């Protein structure tokens, strides 16, 4: 009931002083919008978003082989042999997928036929499990299979956006398109993934054995080293540490085998990173251990930035609340004279203010969406997601990037913190005045 009174009081004040309310809400909106942009960027990088709906259970496994003299072998992934021998029998894995690490090497153009308008496309070289690990929505057809991977078949899965760009019409599945002037058979069409999701987004997906890419996953003698990044979807209840234990069991066996074949001592670093660790790294590779403490330490940096973004507008709002409290000194004096306690009055001021702050919060939340939509094609924004500016294709956004309960909670917490920062000091300073002095203002 008390809340209703505060709301009624706040609404009455808003009606009475529309200009103040409008400026206050605008100030709050800017503060919340700037803080929420940070939260949204973080969410897009770390949250569960189509088709990466299991990011919290996805682990990325890399490797690093070095000779005894410290020389690095030059491959940060695994070979298909390692995928077969090490990863296919993991107890804690629900799905294991191998993806080529080097999509940046290739520049592909696509067209319906040679001589027709060409489109620059992005590619991903994967295995069929890629479409099990990530929950792609197939609009037509299906993924390529193990047989296609084994035979290095020139078959591809493309996005609906690319199909539209190629002006291929419907029924493209089963037909061929030209990639760098070579024919490829389309086996499936999936719903487009936003380019902001670096691990899964591409225009075209194809078996990693296709083309000259095979040269990039083979290293002489060190048969486990290659260009494939292994992605593991953990079964529910299993942890990264359990996966590490399982992988570690392969190390002594393989290293002794390697010594017998090469006659050299080798070091093998197995890099096991949860999804968040791949996208959030403020303290360098050595400092991080991907534990919960590490996660919190990494999250503290954007949290500090958000606090700073709230602090500056809070100074503004404090100035405005201070002005407003000046006008209400007499009212406060009378209430104090009739026995109202300072704490109660302070509580009232803060809660009345919260109503205004929440209005600004809603506007700010909307503003942050608009801002992200407006800047989504800019170099700066794209660089936050490891992407380059693309002058041809506009970056698509997905609804699940903006709407989640966590984001609402963050927005509310931001409002509450901002409200406290803005109202506490001026209200307390004003309420500290002796009753006589306050009543004197009534004259």
């Amino acid at each position, binding site marked *: 009931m008390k809340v209703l009174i505060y709301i009624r009081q706040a609404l009455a004040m808003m009606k009475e002083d529309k*200009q*103040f309310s409008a*400026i*206050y809400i*605008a*100030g709050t909106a*800017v*503060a919340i919008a*700037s803080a929420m942009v940070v939260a949204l960027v973080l969410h897009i990088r770390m949250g569960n978003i189509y088709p990466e709906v299991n990011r919290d259970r996805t682990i990325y496994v890399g490797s690093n082989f070095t000779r005894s003299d410290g020389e690095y072998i030059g491959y940060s992934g695994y070979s298909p042999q390692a995928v077969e021998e090490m990863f296919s029998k993991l107890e804690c894995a629900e799905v294991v997928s191998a993806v080529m690490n080097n999509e940046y090497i290739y520049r592909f*153009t696509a067209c319906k036929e*040679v*001589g027709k*308008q*060409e489109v620059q496309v992005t590619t991903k070289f994967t295995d069929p499990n890629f479409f099990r690990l990530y929950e792609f929505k197939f609009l037509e057809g299906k993924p390529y299979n193990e047989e296609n991977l084994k035979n290095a078949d020139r078959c591809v899965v493309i996005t609906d956006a690319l199909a539209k760009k190629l002006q291929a019409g419907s029924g493209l599945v089963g037909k061929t398109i030209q990639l*760098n*002037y*070579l024919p490829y058979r389309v086996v499936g069409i999936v719903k487009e993934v936003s380019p902001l999701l670096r691990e899964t987004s591409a225009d075209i997906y194809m078996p990693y054995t296709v083309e000259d890419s095979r040269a990039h996953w083979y290293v002489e003698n060190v048969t486990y080293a290659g260009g494939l990044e292994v992605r593991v979807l953990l079964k529910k209840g299993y942890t990264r540490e359990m996966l590490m234990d399982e992988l570690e069991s392969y190390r002594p066996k393989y290293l002794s085998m390697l010594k017998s074949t090469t006659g050299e001592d080798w070091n093998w670093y197995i890099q096991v990173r949860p999804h968040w660790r791949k996208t959030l790294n403020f303290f360098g590779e050595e400092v991080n251990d991907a534990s919960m403490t590490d996660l919190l330490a990494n999250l503290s940096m954007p949290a500090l930035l958000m606090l700073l*973004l709230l602090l*500056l*507008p809070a*100074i*503004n*709002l*404090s*100035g*405005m609340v*201070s*002005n*407003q409290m*000046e*006008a209400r000194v007499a009212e406060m004096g009378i209430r104090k004279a009739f026995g109202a306690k300072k704490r109660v009055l302070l509580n009232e001021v803060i809660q009345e203010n919260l109503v205004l702050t929440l209005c600004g919060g809603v506007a700010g939340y909307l503003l942050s969406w608009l801002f992200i939509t407006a800047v989504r094609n*800019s*170099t*700066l924004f794209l*660089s936050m997601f490891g992407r*380059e*500016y693309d*002058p041809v294709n506009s970056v698509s956004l997905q609804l699940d990037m903006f709407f989640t309960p966590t984001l609402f909670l963050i927005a509310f917490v931001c409002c509450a913190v901002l409200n406290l920062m803005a109202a506490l000091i001026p209200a307390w300073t004003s309420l500290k005045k002796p009753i006589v002095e306050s009543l004197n203002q009534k004259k």
Partner: protein
Amino acid sequence: MRLILKNLWAHRRQNGWIFAEIAIITALSWAMVDFLVVNYYGIYFCNPAGDFEKDHLCVGQFGVLREEMEKTDSEDFGEEGLNQEEFLEHRMGGIYTIKQKLQDMPEVQSVCLTWAYLYEDLRLYNWDRFAPADDTLKTVTAACEQYYQNEQFFETQGLQTIEGSPVAEVLSRELPQDAIVITRSMAEQLFGTDQVVGKRLANVNYMYSPDGNYHQVAGYHTIAGVVEDVKGAPHERYPYTAFIPNPEVYANYETKLLLRLKPNVDADEFVKRLTPTLTKEFRAGSNVLAYLDTFNHHLERQKEKNENTLVSQLATVPLVLFAIIVVIGTLGTYWLQIRKRKEDIGIMRAFGASKMRIFCTLIAEGAILTFIATLLGDIIWLQFANSWEILSEGNIMSSSGMENDWVTQFWPHFLIISLIVFLLLLAVVSIGIALPAWNVCRRKIVEALRDE
């Protein structure tokens, strides 16, 4: 002035908040404004005298038709018994046919195949350190462009030679193996004069070791020509650029196309007309002209990808945010403050003060408040700037370290940037004050006095 100061003091509690905010924002935004000012100074105020004409320039990239290549490779390699080098020349021979086809077009003035051209890739442009052969400590870091000889490179790129240097047509032909062509400013910085043809340049490598830096001569060049100033990238401040002939004789996979149109031809129209049928019309053997664009459009795209653009955007976003925060802050504070001062303003008007005078008084209040707050913010920043030596040098690679402009000198640099920060904040604060001030000035005297 006394009245202004008196008003500021009388409302010190409310003004204190906005004062603190301006001071904090000054300290926070100083480095960002510094970077942007130095960077834009380089882009817009350090345009070299010569430059090159860009409006009639087009750029292109070749592609390889792999299906065609697979078909012909086995025949050529086997039947004609070519060695690896001859085979590559044979495989890329189509590029010359395509070039000739372009050359024969009536709109085209000149075409050249090149290893690189100016502003081709703003992320990866090369730079190297040069010094006079007899004084290898006096170095200049310059952007380096490699080009193929006998390809009309200098004419097509649009480089103007200076008096005393061989003309562009001569420089484009085959030069001695150690030849180098440099810009006028680079010549003057190294030798004190632009008449340097025939002089020797050392290519100097700086090595970094735990005992300190030392330098090593990697090779020598003879200056074959001097061209008017051009920069290696638009954001470079000093036009130190060197052109080095590439010893390669035949086109390869890295070959780019540079094309200059006749002065009466519209480059946009030309590219628009050719693009739809480019891969069909311009193909020979396994080679194809895969991409053709106007230089200006290509440059725009390069700028978008450039790290300099990224850093500029990174610096601009918080500045815009700060500006919005200050506008809302001053707007809110002064709106409420002026409302309480309506009576005073009414009395002033009644005693003959004009609307403009009252408006200016309020703006002056904001100016003084901003000046004092900015001064405080500058002093706070100065502590960092002094001890960390972090005055911005922009995002440049080409430099000699001997330049003597305002950017390289501490106090002129600090004072100019501080002044710009003050002016920016003054503009922002004035916007915040102007609306409520104008609102109250518009009121009739009787109405204003009614509040009294």
